């Protein structure tokens, strides 16, 4: 198996970079969110013929993140999950559960200081 490596990109470049990958027929595998102190790291993973490509963006809590749903329609579940668990917000989601995908009320349980 290949070694894990990723590329850190700017928030503004995200959509253009992902669009390029889509044209090369990459498949969206996952978006993984990690809280590192006050910031959040989002790791986007793409796959083409069983080789992986990772992009990483680092955002603060209040910055709206552009949604991938205009490029990959199926990203709405992954993004809604992050919205639920970490309280981040995504702009222009095609199906927005407003933080109620998993919990009946808005309550980001995965935040580190929130027990």
């Amino acid at each position: 198996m290949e070694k894990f490596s990723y590329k850190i990109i700017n928030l503004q470049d995200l959509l253009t970079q992902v669009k390029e990958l889509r044209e090369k027929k990459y498949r969206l595998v996952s978006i993984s969110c990690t809280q590192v102190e006050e910031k959040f790291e989002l790791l986007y993973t793409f796959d083409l013929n069983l080789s992986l490509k990772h992009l990483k963006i680092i955002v603060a809590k209040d910055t709206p993140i552009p949604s991938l749903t205009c490029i990959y329609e199926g990203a709405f579940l992954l993004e809604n999950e992050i919205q639920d668990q970490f309280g981040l917000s995504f702009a222009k989601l095609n199906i927005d559960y407003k933080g109620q995908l998993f919990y009946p009320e808005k309550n980001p349980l995965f935040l580190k200081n929130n027990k």
Partner: protein
Amino acid sequence: MPKTIIPFGPQHPVLPEPLHFSLTVEDEIVQEAIPGFGYVHRGLEKLCEIKDIHKMIQVVERVCGICSKIHALCYCEGIEQMMGVEVPPRAKYLRTIWSELHRMHSHLLWLGLFADSFGFESLFYHFWRIREKILDINEKTAGNRIIVSVNILGGVKRDLSTEDQKWILAELKEIENKLEEVKDTLFKDYTISKRTKGKGILSAEEALYLGAVGPVLRASGVAQDCRQLQYAAFSELDFEPVIAQEGDSFARMQVRYFELFQSIDLIRQALSKIPEGPISVKVKGYPEGENVFRVEQPRGEVFYYFKANGSKFLDRLRIRTPTFANVPALAKMLTGIELADVPVVILSIDPCISCTER
């Protein structure tokens, strides 16, 4: 005809698990399907902050009871890769054998439930009777019927004796015969082809674009199987991904049925090549850094992301399970079909809700 919204689930006779769909229906034809979740959500990824890396094996085994062994395999191989632990070859083979047994029991379970969804009760019972043989193998060799708990970091807990290996081969022969017996029924029966052919079609282009994985992707004609990544002992075994071209519910059944024979073949190959030697090595220290790992589950590719900080607790464990990836494709398949076909199409992706929500 006005549009009507029909709630499907969470408590529905055909679904063993709570899954909710809001179906917008116009004149018996589904126009839009919006999934709803949260009835099984536990938040177990967060447990990695209070349970150490060894105890987390038991937690990830309980992400899903059906493919528990393969979750543990993915977790262990991922952590071992991070720490640079070399697992003894015998342990690799044993992991492969148990994971293929799990794939078989999961596929048989699904074939039964699928038969139940279109009302073929006797076929449902037939498949579940065959499945008991695999559970007996699990119980005898690993000590539990479903959650076998054999994996540890650095190897496996239990060994297979020569008598057990012989017994497994004999049982496999019997299972193979029983499966051959129903081949005609599955592919030639009028009811089955009427209920499944042409229902829930997904093209290869759409499947890739919506991120479908596993048998759903392979039934659309894309030959992608994560076992080709050669984790565990798969590098030394021969196999070709099973594919079908039509992309409908029938094709998905076909892929899963032939994967059963593939698994039988893989177990036979593994049992004939299994080397002697120790079954585990001692793991010292704790992992540091980031890693991703993926393996092929019965339902498709599972993706693990680890972030560790050198202490005995992981910083973050993220699990992207196969059904989670298949749900957008399912929502797409449901549009444009008749309301009466909804249960069949939902079951055709083999939904595992406890995986999806974790």
